[in-house]
């Protein structure tokens, strides 16, 4: 090998080494924990959908459904794999471990947590563990949000085993599935504000060492028929109206914000050190901004209406773009998917909307924002009835002006069940490293 050849070979090897090592992502497909690795910046190959089983439909069981989402594949837009977990327990949300090898999926009714190996072969996830001590170890009920931290998964509960109300907390498990610790949501009046004890989502900003939590409602309400619930004034009082800011390292709440109307999903914008977060309130239909003021104190304030709040469109899932300049918002009752321009987070502007279904809940977008996926189910007893009970996965392309549908899967026609949470995966060769870490 001559000198030039050796230099070229060395340079090539160094370049290979530089791109090879996986880095911690700032955000993963825009909404996952910042501690999640193996960011998919290119084409997501597989879409995993956590599905609620329906009695008498197929095997009737909750299941993880894998859909081929690669347009170049012969199976594009088709269900390529299912894993039934047995029974129906109100399948709801999922989350990856920090190394993205495993996908944890929870059930809000029986509190079971299913761990799927998606690292070995993402086309064929395998159930490798079932965790059934969430309630007995923590006293919490309704494992909702699964949020990766290094070597651990934080699980936000929705309720508790004592009264099935909304007072709850966060349980921490090791990646191996062992219970580590529990942290109650702040309750009562104190120097940090007045906590209601409710919980829903988790969002961490590592650079600021802050964690935000939001609030929903307890088992009694989320397992109740929605029509019955709405007509019950006492039950309607039992919704969260706070967000809490935590010292993440110390796992101690430091501030409680009044955010009326059940603030749900939390999305941090970490692009360019902007360090603000956004949430949507389900019952009051508003976007709320959480941001530091000029004195460095964190503040929460309503910055936009979502549709006509008086009609209770019921905002559910939101998805922020990677650059923090756009936000998708689904509203369940009117079945609309809306896009907000977030260039000025103090004053978001809706720039686009379509009726995407008779009911619509979750929204996930690719890292580049060019592909958007929607699913339909909210909760088994909250989904609409009769012909309005559409259950689907719909995939779209987004060109910045309009959504163009690419494929649709009717989950009832396929005898799968109610389509809820989605997560992306890809084979290792398709996985790109994050370009920065914070």
């Amino acid at each position: 090998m001559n000198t030039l050849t050796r230099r070229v070979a060395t340079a090539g090897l160094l370049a290979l080494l530089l791109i090879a090592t996986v880095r911690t992502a700032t955000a993963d497909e825009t909404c996952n924990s910042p501690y999640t690795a193996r960011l998919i910046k290119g084409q997501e190959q597989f879409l995993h959908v956590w599905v609620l089983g329906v009695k008498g439909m197929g095997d009737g069981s909750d299941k993880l459904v894998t859909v081929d989402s690669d347009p170049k594949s012969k199976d594009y837009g088709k269900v390529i794999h299912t894993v039934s977990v047995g029974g129906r327990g109100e399948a709801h949300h999922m989350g990856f471990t920090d190394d993205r090898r495993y996908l944890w999926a929870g059930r809000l009714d029986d509190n079971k947590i299913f761990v799927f190996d998606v690292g070995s072969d993402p086309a064929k996830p395998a159930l490798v563990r079932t965790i059934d001590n969430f309630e007995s170890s923590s006293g919490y009920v309704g494992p909702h949000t699964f949020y990766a931290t290094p070597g651990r998964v934080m699980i936000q509960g929705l309720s508790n085993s004592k009264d099935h109300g909304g007072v709850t907390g966060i349980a921490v498990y090791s990646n191996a599935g062992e219970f580590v610790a529990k942290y109650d949501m702040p309750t009562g009046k104190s120097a940090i504000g007045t906590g209601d004890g409710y919980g829903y989502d988790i969002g961490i900003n590592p650079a600021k060492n802050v964690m935000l939590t939001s609030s929903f409602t307890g088992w009694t309400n989320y397992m109740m028929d929605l029509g019955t619930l709405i007509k019950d004034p006492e039950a309607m009082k039992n919704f969260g109206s706070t967000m809490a800011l935590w010292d993440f390292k110390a796992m101690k709440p430091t501030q409680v914000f009044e955010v009326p109307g059940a603030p749900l999903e939390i999305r941090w914008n970490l692009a360019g050190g902007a360090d603000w977060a956004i949430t949507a309130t389900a019952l009051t239909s508003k976007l709320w901004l959480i941001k530091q003021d000029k004195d460095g104190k964190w503040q929460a304030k309503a910055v936009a209406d979502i549709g006509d709040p008086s009609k209770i469109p019921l905002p559910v899932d939101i998805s922020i773009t990677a650059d923090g300049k756009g936000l998708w918002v689904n509203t369940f009752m009117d079945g609309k998917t809306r896009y907000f321009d977030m260039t000025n987070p103090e004053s978001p502007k809706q720039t686009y909307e379509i009726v995407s279904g008779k009911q619509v809940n979750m929204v996930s977008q690719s890292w580049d924002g060019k592909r958007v996926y929607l699913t339909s189910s909210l909760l088994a007893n909250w989904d609409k009835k009769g012909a309005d009970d559409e259950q689907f996965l719909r995939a779209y392309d987004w060109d910045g002006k309009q959504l163009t549908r690419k494929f649709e899967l009717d989950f009832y026609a396929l005898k799968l069940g109610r389509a809820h949470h989605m997560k992306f995966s890809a084979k290792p060769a398709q996985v790109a490293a994050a370009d920065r870490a914070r």
Partner: protein
Amino acid sequence: MKAARIALLAILVIVPASGVLQTARAQDPVRRPVQDFVPPAAGSYRLPPIQDAGNGWVLEGNYFPRRLARYTHDAYTLLTFVYTYCSDPVGCPLAYSTLDAVKNGVVADQRLRGKVRLVCLSFDPTHDTPGAMQTYGGLNIRDTRVPWHFLTTYSMTTLAPILDGYGQDIEVVHDASGKATRARTHMLKMFLIDRQSRVREIYSAAFLQPEVILNDLRTLAMEDAAMQAR
């Protein structure tokens, strides 16, 4: 020969080892995570045990087998997995640089001096021989102020159960023809292990901040002091 020993001793005494290393690694591309906060005070928070420290057979300096457990008890241990030719700015060079900064902090803190151990264990037993790891460790190996061990293993067969025990992922990168390269993909993790061989904190690239790690070490020291006082 005697003169050479005296010269080496002089270097060790006059020049802080980490300073030499930092100079030698000045070219290393390290990208530290942003830390826009004041860490909570040591002892003001808990570090619940996460898991037991992993064990297995390792090598240090030669081919005599040793149990990894001997490096993970009776001191506050920071253990991380590296490979010597890793050049990722948020990978192994960041881990090394962070440990170097922690070492300086330990040396400067009477509460921690003599209580902390650092361990780097190679991902790549094929290329990172015991000798290669000693070279990688440089003068840090001989600096007795903070023991710093540079370990490897016989083979992937002996390394694999250790990686599994810590939940540390690793994949060999293949080239376009499917041939294995020397490159590895892995998620940078650093494990804080207490005197009873329990993992008490796990840091990844987004949270690898020396100031935070030093406070975690002080928190464990305060916890032990409180236990002994009872």
